[in-house]
């Protein structure tokens, strides 16, 4: 095995394709795949790759996280905003195991990632060498594909395959583990993009008879309801959805990850689905005659008790992944296609009249929800600020045009419920996995993915402390991210469950918090705290007007519960308003 010698300068290196190190080949593969940003953390087993990166700084910007979990969450949000696979570098052992949470998150939320983990030299594999972990075994259940490279000759082909798999079909995370000797050895370089793998069908063939059956149900429906999931955003079908809805006059409800795929101020938008979604679309799920589910997977947080879910309705399910059809809910028509393809074909044949009575029932339910919940939370008169007010104020001041990155828990549900999304693909949150600590690094990745966007991160005091070290990234790269922590000194969502289901035995949910303003100040980021309602508007305005990163802690009501709620084990139509 030959070792690459570094005699060439950058110019001649980029032209020369003979006798390159594996590390150089890997980095050039990234350039071929139009990668411009990499998130990562250096360490022993990935050093040759970082050394090769040193010569490509003009085309590849590396963002140095302070923990690999921060790097992978940033890469996830970057991917969702930029619509390109997010790329991460980590070293072997602990560096690699630290990305597992992000992989699991990306796998559940269909986010394209290419994660490169360094590995000990191939001769040491299986010997329990220093920082050796079986990353292929560990990542197998949480990746769409993974591969261990042990030979330099494999690199270009495997990288091409990795990007093809990550971004095609139902997107997902890919992990490439590369031994140190493969990074150092040399080979001639030739890159060929991958567009076919014989055992992989990313775009299955659509059964036209199912399409006809779907159109017939849709055209005959009196009380239809469309459930819009993240598949709309992933396939870029926002326009097709709008055309479909305007042709058929079918009301639209979004899943958590579907939020922002349809403007919330559209007359046919009826709200969010799920455990803490809006009252109308949940109740009417069990009233509609045809349910059209597009790019969503009937998650248990959406369905409640599946035995009592939409039993009266004919269900049309559009999903690109055949294993999602009939998995949780038995459907009448399964359309195997991505949302864009299915909707554009349906748009040629669907039609529908206004449904005033049906729409009125949504309006009435909204009014009920407004009186019982929204008024009390988003327009609270209590002494302490409610986190719903914070989100509503941010929504009003940004005109619903900022990218909103929420964390997990009450802050996430308040963000989803009270932000008026006006622009497509402007919500980033951890849906399937519910990863606390996701929000802040996600905001970093979102800002890098769209440098001109206003990015607001909303976290609770619990989740913020899981990844707050990434404030260093914000400072280092001068990212103008706006960071809000709604601080109720509790793990609020768990406290809510203890309140409702565990006899108010508040076991281990109270947090004795540090002074967040001081901590953020220590990172060199402007930080303020607000606890009085009369100062909230101005504090948020000051934050949003700042050209730089800005941190705002809002001290909020401790005892507040997120409502309405579908109590676990009950039906969507049994949703509680109080």
């Amino acid at each position, binding site marked *: 095995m030959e070792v690459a010698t570094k005699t060439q300068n950058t110019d001649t290196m980029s032209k020369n394709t003979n006798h390159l190190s594996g590390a150089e080949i890997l980095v050039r593969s990234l350039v071929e795949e139009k990668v411009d940003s990499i998130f990562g953390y250096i360490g022993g087993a990935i050093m040759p790759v970082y050394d090769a990166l040193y010569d490509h700084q003009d085309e590849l910007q590396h963002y140095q996280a302070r923990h690999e979990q921060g790097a992978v969450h940033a890469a996830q949000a970057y991917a969702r905003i930029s619509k390109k696979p997010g790329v991460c570098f980590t070293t072997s052992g602990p560096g690699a195991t630290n990305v597992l949470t992000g992989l699991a998150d990306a796998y559940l939320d269909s986010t394209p990632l290419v994660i490169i983990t360094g590995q000990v030299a191939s001769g040491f594999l299986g010997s329990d060498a220093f920082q050796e972990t079986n990353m292929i075994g560990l990542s*197998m259940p949480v990746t769409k594909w993974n591969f261990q490279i042990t030979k330099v000759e494999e690199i270009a082909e495997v990288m091409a395959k990795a990007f093809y798999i990550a971004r095609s079909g139902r997107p997902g995370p890919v992990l490439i583990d590369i031994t140190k000797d493969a990074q150092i050895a040399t080979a001639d370089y030739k890159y060929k993009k991958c567009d076919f*793998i*014989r055992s992989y069908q990313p775009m299955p063939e659509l059964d036209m008879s199912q399409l006809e059956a779907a159109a017939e149900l849709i055209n005959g429906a009196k009380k239809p309801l469309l459930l819009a999931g993240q598949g709309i955003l992933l396939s870029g079908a926002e326009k097709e959805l709008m055309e479909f809805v305007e042709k058929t006059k079918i009301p639209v409800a979004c899943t958590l990850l579907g939020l922002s795929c349809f403007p919330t101020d559209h007359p046919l938008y009826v709200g969010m689905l799920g455990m803490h979604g809006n009252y109308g679309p949940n109740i009417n799920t069990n009233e509609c005659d045809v349910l059209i589910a597009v790019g969503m997977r009937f998650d248990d947080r959406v369905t409640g008790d599946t035995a009592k879910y939409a039993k009266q309705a004919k269900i049309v399910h559009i999903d690109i992944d*055949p*294993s999602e059809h009939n998995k949780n809910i038995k459907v009448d028509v399964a359309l195997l296609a991505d949302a864009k393809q299915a909707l554009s074909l349906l748009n040629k044949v669907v039609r529908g009249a206004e449904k005033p009575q049906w729409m009125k029932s949504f309006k009435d339910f909204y009014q009920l929800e407004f009186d019982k919940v929204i008024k009390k939370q988003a327009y609270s008169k209590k002494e302490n600020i409610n986190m719903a007010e914070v989100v509503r104020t941010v929504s009003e001041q940004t005109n619903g045009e900022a990218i909103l990155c929420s964390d997990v828990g009450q802050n996430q549900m308040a963000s989803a419920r009270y932000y008026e999304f006006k622009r497509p693909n402007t919500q980033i949150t951890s849906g399937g996995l519910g990863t606390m600590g996701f929000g802040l690094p996600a905001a970093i990745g979102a800002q890098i993915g769209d440098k001109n966007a206003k990015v607001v991160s909303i976290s609770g005091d619990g989740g913020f402390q899981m990844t707050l070290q990434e404030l260093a990234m914000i400072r280092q790269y001068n990212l103008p991210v706006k960071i809000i922590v709604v601080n109720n000194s509790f793990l609020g969502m768990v406290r809510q469950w203890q309140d409702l289901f565990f006899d108010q035995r508040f076991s281990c949910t109270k947090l004795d918090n540090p002074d967040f303003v001081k901590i953020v100040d220590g990172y060199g980021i402007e930080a303020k705290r607000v606890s009085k309602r009369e100062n909230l508007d101005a504090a948020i305005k000051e934050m949003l007007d700042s050209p730089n990163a800005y941190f705002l802690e809002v001290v909020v009501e401790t005892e507040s519960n997120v409502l309405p709620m579908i109590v676990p084990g009950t039906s969507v139509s049994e949703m509680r308003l109080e």
Partner: protein
Amino acid sequence: MQEYTITVFSENNIGLLNEITIVFSRRKINIESLTVSESEVKGVSRYTIVAFMDEGKVENIVLQIEKIIGVFKAIYFEAEEIVHQEVALIKIAISNKLNGNLEALVRNHNARILTVGPDFLVIERVGYKAGNQELFQELEPYGVLQFARSGRVAISTSQKDFTSYLKGLAEAS
């Protein structure tokens, strides 16, 4: 719980066996028997997996196996839809205990003697698991030294299309 035989065709790649078994283990389903070997197409492996599970689950399991990159096709069968066999090898000690009984046993079970050593002989039987088990139990009193049983191999009575699909793959590669 019902017994299903699942046939999987995949690339012959490192790690695929692990990926396929994870689909079962994450649902706490035990694999009763597993056979993996090259199919009629070079480089394509054929798996025969036997497992007990609820009727509602098997369809989704098969789809989740098919979702694995490297897997061409996964199909599930109920008992009446397949022809299947297992092989058993039984090594017994040569001793006075045999006493002329062996011939009848071998004949009755349609078994055969594969080899004879100075102090042992090896009997082979091909058939259903239950029949192989029966022979083992009847031989036990004579001193069984080793008993090895293969997993199930199965051919479906109906499936035709996959053979042509595989041939297509072979021609393509």
